[in-house]
């Protein structure tokens, strides 16, 4: 019997590059934001329900796990936003030179990191 021919490796050996890494990060942050949106709704419902509910939710949010998750969601939001703008520009037909692809990619990473830090500094100051 003829054995089936092997399939050459793809994801297992292909070098991670800014192109593919930012693409998978865009998808990943999109999923994280979807998972996070019910918590956002619970937060608003807790606020509408009154001081006790809100305090309970705020305690959860202030726990180390809550803070870590919120930080992840903040970065996800800004990354998905910035990279989404990058995709819009591409869909309009601009920014396809390899140099531009890489410059805009690094810019998206830098700007989303910066916006995350700014949002957290602002948030912690308001909270204090």
């Amino acid at each position, binding site marked *: 019997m003829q054995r089936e021919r092997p399939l*050459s490796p793809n994801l297992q050996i292909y070098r991670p590059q800014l192109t593919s890494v930012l693409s998978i990060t865009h998808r990943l942050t999109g999923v994280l934001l979807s998972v996070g949106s019910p918590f956002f709704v619970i937060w608003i419902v807790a606020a509408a329900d009154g001081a006790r509910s809100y305090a309970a939710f705020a305690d959860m949010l202030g726990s180390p796990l809550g803070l870590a998750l919120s930080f992840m969601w903040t970065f996800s939001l800004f990354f998905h936003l910035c990279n989404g703008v990058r*995709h819009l520009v*591409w869909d309009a037909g601009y920014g396809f030179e390899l140099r531009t692809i890489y410059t805009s990619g690094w810019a998206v990473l830098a700007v989303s990191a910066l916006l995350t830090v700014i949002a957290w500094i602002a948030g912690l100051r308001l909270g204090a």
Partner: protein
Amino acid sequence: MPVRSSDDVPRRTLLRRFPVPRNFNVSPESRIETGKTWPAPVGTTRTRKFAIYRFDPHAGRNPRIDTFEIDLDDCGPMVLDALIKIKNEIDPTLTFRRSCREGVCGSCAMNIDGTNWLACTRFISDTREPATIYPLNNLRIIKDLVPDLSHLFAQYALVKPWLQTKSLPPERERLQLPEERRRLDGYYECILCFCCTAGCPSHWWNPQRFLGPAALLQSWRWLSDSRDEATGERLDELEDPFRLYRCHTILNCTRTCPKHLNPGKAIASIKKLLIERRS
């Protein structure tokens, strides 16, 4: 330092490959085993190891990785020179496609150090120790570095890569203005090596239904030809959630093209043309 051209080889890489298990999502017959090692001859000073994917269809065994240590002082400068040296002097069963040895035929496209390129235009000095050589990705392997390209050529045929006209043929050639001809620059140079399609993650996940960057670049080459009169029919064929729109603008294609072409831009141009047609 941003990458400027597809032939920029990164000096430093955080990850050589994605952090997934070696045999992640791999069918039993495709699992890779460790093979033989051929050490360098005694007395050599400058050597480079080549870890090469091997598959023998008649052995009834799984593919393996063989490692060949090459004396660089007795070898040409290109990866293809090393492969030919191995075939001539070490293991004559090593099988690969090659023809022009100057980057115009596209036969020796393969995965070198994790990205797709032509073995004849990649300097050995730009590879790492050990240099890893795999066949083009996600294709059924006939032998060693020779993948079965039939499906990719069938996808190429699907975009009807020839001039289609309805008007009566003129007395002489169908003429084109120099600026109309210039619109084909950057698209007509494609040598169909399939480095881009083999390196496209979207094509990995939907190889049957997504046409892939090489075929779509060719499609754009005919869509943008001023003499072609089948633009409507060509667009009808492409207006499909999979054939065209499985492109998620990952742009591995543009990063890897050994002819410095831009399949990503070509696909975006097709998408734009489809939107303009609707409005």
